[in-house]
C-alpha cells in the first residue's frame, strides 16, 4: 500500500526531481491497459477465422426459403479474435483477480478441476435425447448429485431441471400453486418480507399471486407475530430467505413455519444464502416445503459474467408429488427419465420447465466441488465463511455503522450509511473508491430495509492476510471520508478502465446495438 502523497505523514525528501504528470499517449493505451474497438470496427465481412472445406454445390432442399440479403456479420482471423477477446477480458474483475465481497452472490473460488471434469467427453459430448441406455453414467451423476443435495437439506425430493435461482423459485412456487389447485383451493396471496431478493416478488407475481410485504422488526429479522397477523385463508405461501439478506439467521423460523402450516399455507425458502449453513442445520428440520439451491453460489460453479447457473429445488413430502419433469427413476439398477407430465405417477405434476434435463455442465462442477470437500470440508467451508464475515464486521464496527450487530452475522456482514452522515459521500462513492483500491465492491443499496446498504460477503476462500488487507483498506477509506478527503470518493474510480459511466444517458436514449456510422462527406466536395 503506497500512502505517499496522501498527506497522512510528511513525504520523504526526494532524491530525484518530482515526476511530471503522465503524458497522454497517441493510442489512448497506457502500457498494459489496452483499448479495444468493437468487433464491428475491427472485423471485416470478407474475413473468417475458420477454415472449412469448399461446399460441393448443387444440393438444394431449401424449398425456396433461401436467404435473400446479407446479414452484416463481420469476421476475425484467429489471431485477431484472440487479441480482441483477451483485451476485453483484461477490462474485467473476477474472483481470480482478488477479493470479490459481493453480498448475496457467494463469489467463492472456482476450482479448475471442476472445469476439467465438465469437459470430459463423457459429460460434454453427449446429447440429451440419446437412448438412456447410452447415458447411464450421466444419469448416475445426476442421481449422486441428488443424493448429496438431499443429505445436506434433509428434504424428501429434489428437482434438478431449473436453470438458475429465479427459475428454481418459479418451479418451487409452481409446485405450491399446483398443490393448492389439487386441493381445490384458490389462495391468491404470497407473503414476502421487505428484505427479500427482487426475484421473490417477481416470481410470485409471474404466476398470478398478489404479493404482500411483511415488515422487518427492529433487529432485522421477521417477527412471527407479523406473519401470524398477515396469514389468512387467502395466503398460499410465505417466501422467506434464511439466512436472510441482512446476514442474520431467522431465529424464529420454526415458529414461523408452524404458523404458516397451521394456516394451510406453504413455506418457500430462498436458498441463496445456503452457504452459511452447510452441515450446520438441515432445512427440512426448519419446516421448509421448498427451497432452490444456487449451484453457482454455494457449490461454486463459475458465475461467468452472469451465468449460466443452475437452481435445483428441494421439496418436502407434501410437495414432492408436484415436482416437474423430467425426473430420474431407478428400476433394478437401471436409471431412466420420466419425461412427460404424468410419467412420475402423479397426475398433478408440474410439467416441464424447459427442454431437456437441466444444466448438466453445472451438475458435474457442483458434484466435483462436493466430492472434493466431503462432509467435513463442506461444514468447514460454511464455518469459515461465517467466521470471515463476523471477523470483517468486528474489525469495522468502530468506524462503520453496522445495524443489527447485536446478533451474530451469518456469512455476510451488513453496514448502512449512517457513518457517512455529513461527509457528502454516498454508499456508491465508497463502492467506487474500493475499485481504486483493487477490490470488487460489496453489494450496495441492498437489502432495501436499511439506508445505503453495504453487504459484504467475503466467503471461505479468503486467507486471513487477504481479509486483513481488505479491512485495512476499508478502514483507511472510512477515516479519509470522515477527514473530508472527498476527492478519493467523488471522482472514483480513478484507475479503472473507465471512469464513472453515465447510466442516465444510457437509459434515456438506449443504444443497444452497433450500427454503421453515417458515411463521411466526400472529401472532394
Amino acid at each position, binding site marked *: 500500500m503506497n500512502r505517499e502523497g496522501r498527506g497522512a505523514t510528511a513525504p520523504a525528501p526526494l532524491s530525484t526531481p518530482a515526476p511530471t504528470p503522465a503524458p497522454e499517449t497517441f493510442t489512448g493505451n497506457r502500457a498494459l491497459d489496452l483499448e479495444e474497438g468493437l468487433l464491428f470496427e475491427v472485423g471485416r465481412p470478407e474475413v473468417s477465422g475458420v477454415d472449412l472445406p469448399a461446399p460441393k454445390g448443387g444440393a438444394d432442399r431449401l424449398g425456396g426459403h433461401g436467404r435473400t440479403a446479407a446479414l452484416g456479420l463481420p469476421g476475425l482471423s484467429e489471431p485477431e479474435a484472440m487479441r480482441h477477446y483477451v483485451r476485453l477480458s483484461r477490462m474485467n474483475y473476477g474472483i481470480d483477480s482478488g477479493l470479490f465481497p459481493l453480498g448475496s452472490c457467494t463469489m467463492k473460488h472456482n476450482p479448475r478441476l471442476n472445469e476439467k471434469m465438465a469437459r*470430459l467427453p463423457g459429460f460434454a459430448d453427449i446429447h440429451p435425447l440419446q437412448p438412456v441406455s447410452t447415458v447411464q453414467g450421466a444419469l448416475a451423476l445426476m442421481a449422486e448429485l441428488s443424493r448429496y443435495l438431499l443429505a445436506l437439506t434433509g428434504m424428501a425430493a429434489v428437482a434438478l431441471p431449473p436453470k438458475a435461482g429465479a427459475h428454481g423459485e418459479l418451479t418451487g412456487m409452481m409446485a405450491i400453486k399446483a398443490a393448492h389447485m389439487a386441493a381445490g383451493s384458490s389462495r391468491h396471496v404470497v407473503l414476502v418480507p421487505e428484505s427479500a431478493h427482487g426475484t421473490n416478488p417477481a416470481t410470485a407475481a409471474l404466476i398470478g399471486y398478489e404479493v404482500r410485504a411483511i415488515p422487518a422488526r427492529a433487529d432485522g429479522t421477521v417477527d412471527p407475530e407479523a406473519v401470524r397477523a398477515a396469514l389468512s385463508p387467502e395466503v398460499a405461501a410465505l417466501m422467506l430467505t434464511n439466512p436472510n439478506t441482512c446476514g442474520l439467521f431467522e431465529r424464529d423460523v420454526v415458529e414461523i413455519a408452524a404458523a404458516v402450516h397451521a394456516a394451510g399455507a406453504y413455506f418457500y425458502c430462498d436458498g441463496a444464502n445456503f452457504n452459511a449453513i452447510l452441515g450446520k442445520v438441515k432445512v427440512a428440520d426448519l419446516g421448509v416445503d421448498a427451497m432452490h439451491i444456487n449451484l453457482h453460489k454455494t457449490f461454486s460453479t463459475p458465475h461467468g459474467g452472469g451465468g449460466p447457473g443452475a437452481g435445483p429445488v428441494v421439496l418436502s413430502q407434501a410437495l414432492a408429488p408436484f415436482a416437474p419433469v423430467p425426473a430420474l427413476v431407478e428400476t433394478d439398477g437401471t436409471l431412466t427419465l420420466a419425461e412427460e407430465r404424468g410419467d412420475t405417477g402423479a397426475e398433478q405434476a408440474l410439467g416441464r420447465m424447459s427442454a431437456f434435463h437441466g444444466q448438466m455442465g453445472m451438475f458435474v462442477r457442483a458434484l466435483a466441488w462436493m466430492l472434493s470437500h466431503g462432509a467435513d470440508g463442506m461444514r468447514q467451508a460454511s464455518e469459515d465463511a461465517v467466521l470471515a464475515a463476523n471477523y470483517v464486521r468486528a474489525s469495522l464496527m468502530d468506524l462503520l455503522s453496522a445495524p443489527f450487530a447485536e446478533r451474530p452475522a451469518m456469512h455476510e456482514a451488513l453496514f448502512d450509511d449512517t457513518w457517512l452522515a455529513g461527509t457528502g459521500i454516498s454508499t456508491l462513492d465508497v463502492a467506487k473508491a474500493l475499485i481504486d483500491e483493487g477490490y470488487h465492491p460489496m453489494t450496495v443499496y441492498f437489502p432495501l430495509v436499511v439506508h445505503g446498504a453495504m453487504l459484504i460477503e467475503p466467503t471461505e*476462500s479468503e486467507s486471513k492476510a487477504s481479509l486483513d488487507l481488505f479491512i485495512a483498506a476499508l478502514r483507511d477509506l472510512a477515516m479519509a471520508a470522515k477527514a473530508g478527503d472527498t476527492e478519493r470518493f467523488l471522482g472514483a474510480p480513478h484507475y479503472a478502465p473507465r471512469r*464513472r459511466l453515465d447510466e442516465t444517458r444510457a437509459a434515456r436514449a438506449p443504444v443497444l446495438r452497433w450500427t454503421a456510422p453515417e458515411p463521411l462527406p466526400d472529401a472532394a466536395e
Partner: protein
Amino acid sequence: MRYLPLTAEDRAEMLARIGVPTVDDLFVDIPADKRMSALPDLPPAKGELEVERQLARLAGRNMTAGSVPFFLGAGAYRHHVPATVDHLIQRSEFLTSYTPYQPEIAQGTLQYLFEFQTQVAALTAMEVANASMYDGSTAAAEAVLMAHRVTRRRKAVLAGNLNPQYRATIETVSRYADDMVTALPARPEGGEDLIAGIDKDTSCIVVQSPDVFGNLVDLKPIAEAAHAAGALLVAVFTEAVALGLVEPPGAQGADIVVGEGQSIGNALNFGGPYVGLFATRQKYVRQMPGRLAGETVDAEGRRGFVLTLSTREQHIRREKATSNICTNSGLCALAFTIHMSLLGEQGLTKLARLNHEAACDLAEQLAAVPGVSLVNTSFFNEFTVRLPRPAVDVVEELARKGILAGVPYARLAPAAGLDNLLLVAATEVTTAEDRAAFAAALKEVL
C-alpha cells in the same frame, strides 16, 4: 482442505477479535434442537486425483457423440467448435466475474454482451436483442408472456410443428399464470394451416422454422394474418446455423424471434447449459425480458457500456418486473459471440451450406433404404423419415451397433401417435463414411 486458506491459528485469532470462544457461538441463532450434531451422512474430503477418478468412471459409462456415427438434433446440435473459443471463455476474468453491476470494472463483459446483442439482431434481422436467456425453450415461454403484455390479450396459439418440449415449457408457465394456450396438431409433412388458428383474442402465434420435423416455413403470410388480427408473430428456431442459409424471421415480419444458440460455440452438454436468443422490434423493447447492455460515455467522455433499462427488471421493479430472470447465460453467450466472430458472415454461410449438403446426402441415402420414406419436402440440416416400425426400437438397436441414429419423435411426444417417425440431423462433423454406415445399418435392422 486445499480450497480453504484459513489455518487453525488464523481461526483462533479471528474468533478472539470477534470475542467468542468457538465458531459454534456464531451459529447460536439456529435453534439449538435443530443444529446438526453429526456431520451429514456423506463421504469425507477427497484429493483431486480421487475426484477425477470417480467422475471419469461415470463419464466412461456414456456413449459419446464423437466416438460413433451421430445424427441427433431436435434442439441440440453437434458442431465443430474452434479451440480458440473454449480457451477464451476460460480466461478467468470472464469465467469468474459476476453480472456486470459495477460497469467500470466489467467493460469486458459489457462490451461482449453489446457485440452479442448486435450479432443476434443481425442474424435474425431484428432491431434489438437482449443479453441472453437460459435457453431456447424458456426464451419461447418468455416470448409468449411478452406478447401478452404487448397485446393485453392472454391466448397464445402454438403451431403443431413446434418442438413438443418447447410447447410443454410454454404450457407449464401458462397453466400457472392463468393464460390460455391452444396447441394445434402436428403435421409432419409441413404445410400447416396456421392462419385459421388466429382470432381476435389471439396474443401471438408461435411458429418454428425449421420446424421440429425440419420443414422450412414461409412466415410472411402468417405474420400478415397475425398483424391483421392485432396479434404478434413469435418465430422460433432451434438451430442457429440455419440462419446462415435461410431467410431470417425478421425479414418475414416476425415481432419476436427466439431461438436456441447452443449450436454456435457450445457443446452438447447433455442438454445444458445452453443460451437462449431473444430479439424483437425497437418499439417493444421496454416490454422485453432479460438484461440489456447499452452504450454510454464515462466521466471523461470515453465510450463505455452499462446494463440499461433495468427498470424492467426484478431487482428494481420487484413484482412489477417484466420477468423474474436474473442470472442468464453470460458465458455461453460469450462462446456464441466468439465462434460467430471467427466464422463471420462468410464462414457462417459456408458452414450452413456444408450442413445442408450433408443432410441432403443423408436424406437421399436413407430414403433409398427399403421401407423408409422421407417426410419432408424442404429442410436445412435436419429432416424426418418414416420407418416401417417404431423408431424408439430401431434407435435402440442401432445404438447397440454403435450408431446414434437420431431422435424418435415419440421421445418428444409419446402420445402423438407418430411412433414411426425419426428425426435425423447431419452437420459438418458427420462424414461421408458415417452417413454410409448409418444407411447400411438401418437397412440391416429393418
